[in-house]
């Protein structure tokens, strides 16, 4: 990996390399199945954020920040919020704020709940990136304190 000195030992790094994708995938699964099973945008977003936090703990700050910089994180967070607002505004097409305008489909299908799944995705984006940004801010603060 980029810098072998940074982060934890080889064993942890190898295990992480194998699992981190699965963790993220699980987070995305939770987001997409928010209307079918327990979980949803918030819970899934937290799991996605944890996969990045995991990367940061194991490989060091620089490695994770190369994936998502602080600026990108804060921008994506705003995008997530605006997406959610946009989905809510879509409801005006059907007559009122938050109205579920998209066809509902067959119950228990993956794409079945109209705007709910879109809302879940935008919440997942906002929460995931937001939580990662908070963690990043804490790490940067801690490093500034040490210097």
């Amino acid at each position: 990996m980029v810098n072998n000195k940074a982060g934890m030992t080889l064993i942890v790094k190898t295990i992480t390399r194998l699992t981190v994708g699965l963790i993220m995938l699980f987070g995305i699964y939770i987001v997409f199945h928010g209307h079918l099973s327990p979980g949803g945008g918030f819970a899934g977003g937290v799991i996605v954020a944890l996969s990045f936090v995991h990367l940061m703990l194991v490989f060091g700050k620089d490695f994770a920040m190369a994936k998502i910089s602080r600026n990108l994180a804060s921008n994506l967070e705003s995008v997530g919020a605006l997406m959610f607002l946009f989905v809510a505004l879509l409801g005006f097409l059907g007559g009122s704020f938050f109205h579920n305008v998209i066809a509902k489909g067959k119950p228990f299908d993956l794409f079945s709940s109209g705007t709910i799944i879109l809302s879940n995705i935008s919440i997942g984006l906002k929460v995931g990136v937001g939580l990662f940004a908070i963690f990043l801010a804490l790490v940067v603060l801690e490093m500034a304190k040490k210097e």
Partner: protein
Amino acid sequence: MGKEFILSLMVIIPLGTAFVISLFGKYLRNFCDKAIMVSSFLLLALSLYCRFLLTNTAGTLVYKVGGWNPPFGICMVLDGLSCFMLVTVNIVAFLIALYSLKYMEQYTDKPKFFTLFSLMVCGMNGVILTGDIFNLFVFVEIASIASYALVAFGTEAEELEASFKYAIMGSIASIFIFIGIALLYGFTSTLNMADMAKILTVKDSFRLVPFVAVLFLMGFGIKAALVPFHAWLADAHPSAPASISAMLSGLLIKTLGVYSLVRIFFNVFNAGQVHTVYLKVFMFLGALSIIVGVILAISQWDLKRLLAYHSVSQVGYIILGIGLGTPLGILGGLYHLFNHSIFKSLLFLNSGAVDYSAGTRDLKETGGLAKVMPVTYGTSLFASMSIAGVPPFNGFFSKFLIILACAQAGHIGYGICAVIGSILTLSSFMKVQKFVFLGELKEKFKKVKEVPFSMQISMIILAVVCLLGGLMFVSPLKFFLQDAVNVVTGGMSYSNAVLGGGK
């Protein structure tokens, strides 16, 4: 689509503005200034239009979010009381936004400031308009969390400390509110406030409601800074940038604290005989706040800290007036709420102007600034006379009504408390005028300049409103207050209006 959709715009506009500013504010120069001015002006115009709409329909407007009918979905309710609060909030928020354009240039990151500012306005508009008790909690949290961050905006050690203290106290308040809501939900199986009120009249609730009432009294009491719960305010309000102190003292404690208390206690819990006990508690806490707040204020030498303690005392007047429970008392209380938002935000903006130009707000250091800052001096004289209750200004009329209502309801003791509070307020503002604006101009302040024009204009408008506010009690304008009073005294009529589909 009926005209009710305007209610949802009151939440959509500030929320959208907040995130658009946080996304583009960093890259486009002056974008955040334009965005915030457009959005707060739109909000002001829409809130006045809401008032117009309410007069035309002569009833309650109910907006069904997502098209779900009231007991099931979330609804937004515009009645006399919420319209009154909405207009108050948006007038002051617009003028404070105007003031902040120049004032906030001494801090770095203006886009972040306006993002949080917009979120706070969004939270307050939401609290006022929502008809769903859990939604109310969510909006209370949005406004509070934005305000925690804004108190720490200067990132000096004491500001961070004040913000931390405020965040802890605010979170404790939120927990009380949350537990109260959870218990009510468990008991009534509904979150819609109107439906809840209806169920509470039918179901035997004499054990639960007093307990929940105590939780809400503590929770919203902390948000409103009533006396036993006021300790955080004196740190948090002075530490924030002046425009935020004005928002916090002028609007936040009233919207989150007083409005929610009134809405829940008068429109939701209006079922049993325990009612008079709550009113007694309100009156006692109100009178206590008046006296304790003003005594703490009078010995302060930091201008903003002095003003912050006066907020405690003035909220006491509002709660005392509302707690009397008579139509006249409630009228006085709500009238004072409006007046206090105007003059207290003006006073905080004045303190910000003094800080901006002279670089200090310590009363022992300033002096004679009237000669170099005539506009600030003039407007602060207006505001000081309003808060002290000198006749032609708005503060006189509302205090007079409260004292009259006390006498009418037979609570002479509380009336005397209000009079004493008023006299002490007058003396402490004489101190402010003497030490800040009058007296000898010190050598180091000779070169002090008046603040920029946009700051002046917002202070002047607020001062004019202070003067004209006295006219609100006269009949052509009285409908604005009277409608609000009718909602509070109406009790169950709120529930019937909302469930009856808004007629």
